């Protein structure tokens, strides 16, 4: 299978409210897919389904060869292959940057202290924060914390990375450094799904843009869909966004 993620008519409700009303989309290996849309359109929920943070009620969801719509999926194994970065960083405040990064590799992959240290050095260099290994999260700026969160995810050597509005909590001047980090990852061939409000970034980096509206995939395309939107909803959304 060349698709690393496949949604087939996926439905998801919170109580009586249906958030995903039959979502179908696929993410080919090595590609970058951007999910855009208004708040409440279901894009973040769709992303969270991919690593099993939300379960689905109907449809099929394949991620890294696992069938998430079937009960008994080993979510821990899935999460070794699928990294996620959140809007609010969610670093562990009582651990240093390096400890944040090495915690899971040491526990879940059984790396020795020295091996984990090497991994931390490598991923910190990747996000340009080699000198911050011994800092605590509170000593870093929001942009730096988010880059550490990305490094923490990379240390798991994931096959797929998910980004959930990772720049929404950042000042404009800090947004750039995080986007640059993500763009560099894309160039290295990392498969990524990102929920974002940065339209210019989505247009530049994503191979495929998915516009979600009212719980379904409303329109998909490449960067050119911003110039020639097919649906009035997308035109409207872009009109407000830019």
């Amino acid at each position, binding site marked *: 299978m060349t698709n690393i993620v496949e949604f087939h008519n996926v439905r998801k409700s919170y109580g009586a409210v249906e958030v995903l009303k039959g979502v179908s989309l696929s993410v080919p290996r090595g590609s970058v897919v951007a999910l855009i849309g208004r708040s409440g359109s279901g894009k973040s929920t769709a992303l969270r389904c991919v*690593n099993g*943070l939300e379960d689905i009620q109907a449809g099929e969801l394949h991620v890294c060869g696992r069938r998430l719509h079937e009960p008994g999926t080993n979510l*821990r*194994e899935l*999460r*070794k292959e699928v*990294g*996620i970065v*959140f809007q*609010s960083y*969610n*670093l*562990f*405040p*009582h651990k240093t940057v390096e400890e944040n990064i090495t*915690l*899971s590799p040491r*526990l*879940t992959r059984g790396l020795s202290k020295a091996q984990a240290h090497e991994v931390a050095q490598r991923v910190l260099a990747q996000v340009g924060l080699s000198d911050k290994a011994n800092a605590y999260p509170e000593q870093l700026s929001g942009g730096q914390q988010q880059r550490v969160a990305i490094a*923490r995810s990379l240390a*798991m050597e994931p096959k797929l990375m998910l980004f959930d509005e990772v720049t929404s909590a950042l000042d404009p001047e800090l947004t750039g450094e995080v986007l640059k980090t993500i763009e560099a990852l894309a160039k290295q061939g990392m498969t990524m799904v990102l929920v974002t409000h940065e339209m210019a970034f989505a247009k530049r980096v994503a191979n495929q843009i998915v516009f979600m509206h009212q719980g379904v995939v409303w329109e998909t395309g490449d960067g050119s869909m911003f110039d020639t939107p097919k649906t009035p909803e997308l035109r409207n959304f872009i009109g407000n966004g830019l």
Partner: protein
Amino acid sequence: MGTSLTLAHYLLILQGAVWTIILSLMGFVGGTVVGLPIAIGRISQSKALRRCLSFYIALIQGIPLPILMFLCYFGISVAGFNLPALVAAGMAMTAYSSAYLAEIWRGALQSVPKAQWEAAECLALTRTQRMWHVILPQAVKISIPPTIGFLVQIVKNTSYAVVIGFAELTYTARLINNSTFKPFIVFSIAAALYFALCYPLSHYARRLERKLKRA
């Protein structure tokens, strides 16, 4: 008129204070050993376990400590074991503090943001690993001021061991008063000793709380 206090009296009351400290420590250590697993169990995914533990807490909190002392002292001797008062008092203090410490710590565990659980979950950590490496260390920090505050309650409430004749501070003070008939002096000394034990604790708890609020 009573007789005046001799050096032996002072030594006896100090000895009582030492037993109060020992009983307090037993209550705290026992309360921690029993209370921490209860706190963790109270946020377990098993509803049955949560209910059982919540019943235990309600039960202990709904029984006056002197009755717990009697239950441990006489109840267990009825069952055929002859316990020294120290062990019975230690058991009662353990039961008492475990119920309250468990609630303090459950609150601390639950005040760690849910996003921390989620982040740890997304890093493929097991529930035990999440608890041990991510949640507990943060909860400990949150719970230190109220825990030290509760130590004051433990120290003061060891005085209920008087009902089963355990020779702690209150008991020895009463003993000395019975032979000297100087209640005001004797109980003032006891009060001063209790205060000397409790004040540093509550002062320290307040300072820690301020410090953590600033951090």
